Structures are given as C-alpha cells and as structure tokens.
C-alpha cells in the first residue's frame, strides 16, 4: 500500500497539469473573442454568486452570531454563550411549536405523497381529457398560501362555511369545528396545505411515470405479471428518485410554513397552531427578543440540515459509485 500511494498522487497531479497546458493553447488560438467567451459565463454568474454568498450564507452566519448574544430590540454583539438556547428549550411555546411541526410535517408529507402518487397513476391510464384534468389538479399550486389559507378559513369557520351550509340545507346535527378547536386546529392546516401541494406532487410523479421505459413493463407482462405486481415491484420502486425530490420539496415547505398558518389560524386558537417559523417571527420582531428569535432560527436550520445532509450525502455518494 505505501508504495502505491505516491503513484496515485502523481496521477492526480498529472491530470490538471495536462489540462492546464491544453487550455491556454486553445485560448490563445481563439484570441480575445475566445477569452471573453471563456470568461463570460463566469462574469454573468458572478453577481448572483456574490449576492447569494452575502445575502444567504452571510446572513446565516450573522443570525447564528446573534443567537449567541443578548440582543433584544436591536442587534448587539457581546458574546453571551448558550443563554438563548437554554431559554428556548425552557419555553413551553417553543415545545408546542415543535410538536405542531412534527404533526403537521409528517401528515402533510404523507398525505401529499400518497394522494400525489395515486392521482398520477390514475391520470396515467391514457384517459381522454388528461390535459384538462392535469391542469385542474395543478391549479392550486398557482395560488399563494395566503389565498389558500384565507379561502380555507372561510370554508372551515363554523358560522360561515361548511357547517353553516349543511345546517341551512337541513342537516342541523352536522358539526365540523376543527378550526376553532385548539386540539384539532393543526389538522386544518394539514388539509389546506395538502390541497395546495398535492397537484404539484402529482405532476412530479406523472413526469416520473412517463419516464419509465415501456419495454420493461411489456417484458413483465410477457412474463405474466399482473397490474398490481407491475406497480408494486417495478413502477413504484423505479420512482425512488422522484419520491426523494418530492420529499425534499415538501419537507422544506413544511418547515418554513408561515403564511399558511398566519392566514388560516393566525397561530390560534391561542397558541395551539404555532409553528417554529411563526414563533421565530413573533419573538424576533414583535417581542424585541432578537437573540431568542435567532436561536430558534438556527435550531430550525439545524433541523433542515439534519434531513438534507444525509440525503445529499447518500445521493452524491451513489452517483460517484454509479
């Protein structure tokens, strides 16, 4: 082993050298136009690269720094250790927010995935007005969460929407008051969120279904596999990458949900539908506790990274090997 290692390094070092000597010659041959052509993409990308470096990563670091200070109304920069994190985890409202995120996130992702796959499979049966149906299912995606939230609030408010409609139709014993019930209100957010995002998930899966090679399915049919078997053994397993993309997208929608909650329940009744994002906003901006707000933002970021990093790692690794 020790003997083969220097060899490896040489080989690695050789490669860029070779390409480096090649690149200038071609550039020289092409002249100024060629240099510009080589630099243009980098120049065009540079502003957005710098902007994202400063405004995304820079501010992430800034927030992290603030979470270790005693910042109240305006930012301060004296180091104060983990005091804000201690406060955060001692705060009952933060626990409510985290539990709500868990309930909302898991149900929202699960319902969207299941319904999305189901509708996609049904739409994939070469039916007649597929284009129109697809558009109808995808349309909620065109609305903002504020609109979705407001519309669903009107529908779910007992004295205004569904319940009143049923009562006026004569079904007076009908009761559906989840929106005003602190224990059930979080599920109304799941309903509205799933309504909004299912169409999008369906579109993802439909694209995935169209990408599957017909030859495999035909071969399976020749081998005598039934429709159920083809779906469970061939089609759904081959949609694995789509499942992952959908999971990632839904996951981050769930974590950063803010507008939907604000429009639908306003975090209420009481604080029963608070999510980490609304918690962060309340503390950092409404209550002059920027330090505590920053700490909650950092914990949220940590949560997202906890989901994203293992996934990215496994995806990148499998690409390198495959």
């Amino acid at each position: 082993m020790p003997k083969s290692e220097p060899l490896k390094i040489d080989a690695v070092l050789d490669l860029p050298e070779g390409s480096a000597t090649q690149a200038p010659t071609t550039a020289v041959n092409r002249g100024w136009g060629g240099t510009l052509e080589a630099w243009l993409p980098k120049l065009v990308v540079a502003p957005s690269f710098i902007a994202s470096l400063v405004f995304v990563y820079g501010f992430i670091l800034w927030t992290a720094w603030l979470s270790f200070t005693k910042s109240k109304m305006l930012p301060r920069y004296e180091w104060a250790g983990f005091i804000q994190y201690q406060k955060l985890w001692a705060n009952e409202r933060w626990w409510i927010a985290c539990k709500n995120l868990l309930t909302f996130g898991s149900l929202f992702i699960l319902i969207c995935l299941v319904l999305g796959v189901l509708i996609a499979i049904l739409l994939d049966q070469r039916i007649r007005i597929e284009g129109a149906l697809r558009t109808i299912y995808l349309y909620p995606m065109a609305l903002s969460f504020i609109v979705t939230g407001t519309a669903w609030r009107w529908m779910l408010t007992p004295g205004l929407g569904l319940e009143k409609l049923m009562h006026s139709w004569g079904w007076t014993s009908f009761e559906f008051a989840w929106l005003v019930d602190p224990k059930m209100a979080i599920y109304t957010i799941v309903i509205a969120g799933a309504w909004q995002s299912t169409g999008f998930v369906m579109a993802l899966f439909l694209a995935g279904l169209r990408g599957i090679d017909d030859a495999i399915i035909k071969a399976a049919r020749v081998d005598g596999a039934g429709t159920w078997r083809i779906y469970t053994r061939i089609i759904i397993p081959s949609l694995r990458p789509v499942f992952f993309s959908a999971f990632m997208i839904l996951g981050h929608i769930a974590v950063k949900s803010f507008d939907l909650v604000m429009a639908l329940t306003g975090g209420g009744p009481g604080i029963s539908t608070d999510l980490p994002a609304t918690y962060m906003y309340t503390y950092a901006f409404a209550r002059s506790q920027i330090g505590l707000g920053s700490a909650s933002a950092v914990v949220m970021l940590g949560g997202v990274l906890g989901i994203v990093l293992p996934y990215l790692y496994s995806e990148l690794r499998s690409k390198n090997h495959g």
Partner: protein
Amino acid sequence: MKIRIALLSAFLWLCSGLSAGEVEVLHWWTSGGESKSVEVLKNLMEEQGHTWKDFSVAGGGGESAMTVLKSRVFSGNPPVAAQIKGPSIQEWAEEGVLTNLDQVAARGQWDSLLPEVIKHAMKYEGHYVGVPVNVHRVNWMWVNPAVFKKAGAEVPTTWEEFAVAAEKIKKAGFIPVAHGGKPWQEATIFESIVLGIGGPDFYRKAFVDLDQATLKSATMDRAFTILKMIKGYTDKDAPGRDWNLATSMVINGKAAMQFMGDWAKAEFTNAGKTPGQDYLCLPIPETQGKFIYNVDSFVMFKQTRKEVQAAQNDLAKIIMEPKFQEVFSLNKGSIPARLNMDMGGFDIYGVASMNDFLAGSQANTLVPSMAHGMSTTPAARGAVCDVVTNFYNSEMSAKDASTSLAQEIQAAY
C-alpha cells in the same frame, strides 16, 4: 425684467424651502376614524409650512410598523417621528437615538399640563423623549341595553351578577359576550379581571413589578377561573375574530356585551348609535373607579439637518396643543392626555372617563395596561399573553396557569 422676476421668485422659493422641513411620521393609524385624526395633524403641520410625508405601515397592532422602524433605525435612516408607547419609549431612548424634547417641553410648560403617570412614561432619565397624544381606558364594558331588556337581565357590576345575567341572556337565545379570540383580546379581559378582584396595588405588583409571589397567588387563580367562566358565555366562532367584528355583534343586537377599550366607541359612532340610549358604556364588573390606561405617544428620532430639527420641534409642539388633542380624541374615542381641557365637545362617556382619570390620579388607582404594552417590556407582556391565551384555549387548571405565568415571566428575563 421678466428674467429678474423669475430669478427673484426662484430665489425666494429656495429660501422658503430651506426654512421648512419635511417630516416623515411613522404610524399605524389607518382605520377610518384614526386616519381622520392623522389628517388633522398633517394639516396643522402644513399650516406651519412643513411638508408632511406619510409613512403608515398597517397591520398587526403596530408589529409590522415596528419591524420596519427597526430596520430604518438600524440602517441609520430613521423617520422624523414614530408612534411608540409605554416602556418601549425607554428602550429606544436607551439606544441613544431619540431627540431630547426638554426645550419644547419647557416652552410649552408640559410639566404643569401633564398628569404624573404620563409625565413619568414620557421621560428617560429625567428628560422628555416622548409626546403624549391621548389616553385610552381599557376596562370598559359595552352593553346593548335592548338585549338585556329582552332577556330580563340586569347590567352587572360584580362577577356574581355577571354570571346571573349571562345565564339569562343565554337562555333568551343571545350571545352574552361578544369576544374576538386573539391573544391580546384575552389578555385585555384578563387584566381587567385582575384589577377588579385584586385592586390597583395587586395589579401593579403583578404586571409592573412582575412579583413572583403575587403572580402565583390565590387571587391570580381566581382571576383565571373568572376568565374561564366568561369563555363559557362566548360563541363558538370567536377564535381569530377581529375586535371590531365583535363590537358589531353588540351593535346589531346579536350579543349583549363586549369587554373592550374605548376605541370601540368609534364603531358605535360610525353605526349612528346614540350613547346612553342605544348603547351603554360602563366599567368592567368590579373595576368601578379604577382605570387601566393606554397612552398613545410619539417619539422623535435624532436628525442632522437644521430645518428638519425645527420641523420636529414644531411637530412636538402641535401634538401637545389643545386643538389637536381634542380633535384626535374625538375621532378615536379616547380622552386628551393634557389636563385642564374643555370637555364640551365630548359625549357623556368621554366626560365620565376624564372624571375617573382625574379622580384616579388623586386616589392613585390609575394602572398601566399590560395587554397594550404600557406596563412592562414586550418580552414579559408576550409571556403573559402566551400563558393567558394558552389557559383560555385549553383544559389547563387555574392553579397550573398561575404557576406557569410566574415561570414564563421569570424565563422572559
């Protein structure tokens, strides 16, 4: 000759431009009556030759406005004045960004014109940094007498009487209490209950000094129990309702009463109702003669340009003048912050509020509103609101609620 005149007039125009400044004022008075009041201030400033630049940020009881204000101040570009009240005035003063108004105050003799509690709230380390606009009373009960009559109930003055009356009203098929289920509204009712059963000293110990033993006391348990009892007399659709929608339930006779500050009067006035006849306005049970105040005020941010500084001083002066104080309060349902005003233009409830305020000032029964950010820091206020609304919307026991109140307030520090 023509050219000379043109030049001269241009010169004069420039000169006049130099003496008058542009005032940018941040506020969140955007609803009907409120924007009328702001219009008055704008006209008075323009009479003085200043340019008014409106900077209104609507929504969230000023939360969004505060967010904007912070970013403006932090980037070194503060507005000339902003609507800020309570201990937040001291918080901003601590950052060293507020203009010292001592000179204007001395010239206007504010010391002799302002009641002691307000004077105290407007000062930081003995210097004036805020200008009071008006005084709201929070502990009012708005009553639709027609509903009470139909239900055969008496307007309550104690919580025992309230329970009896509410029961009758419920039986008669009306909603006893119109309530908007938002944390600040629940906190508004709660603080009035605490003042009623505990008295002003207990209230101050709890919500100004944040004394642990007081927060955990049996009186606090009782206040929570009464709050829960009131919930039993509200309707199912209350969560998330805005306060003015609750007020309109009282106006159109769907509900019998509402517990809300005197800003609700503007809703009755706009609906064309006569005070004392179509609606009654009485102190919340057991708070007769006690007064929870909520003072609106402006602070001025330090400016570098001379003409803007002059305009700023004029603004502070105008706000304290009787003309503005009267018109503003008439539109908003409050009473002027300035003493010795002619109350001729006010209705019976405005006069009653003023009398109670003056009497309370003598008897030391004025207390700052916790729910409206007058008594303590935003952090502590938030902690109280969280616990109160959490208790209101769950099956938590009153004992657990007061324990958790003490804990959360301690953690907020």
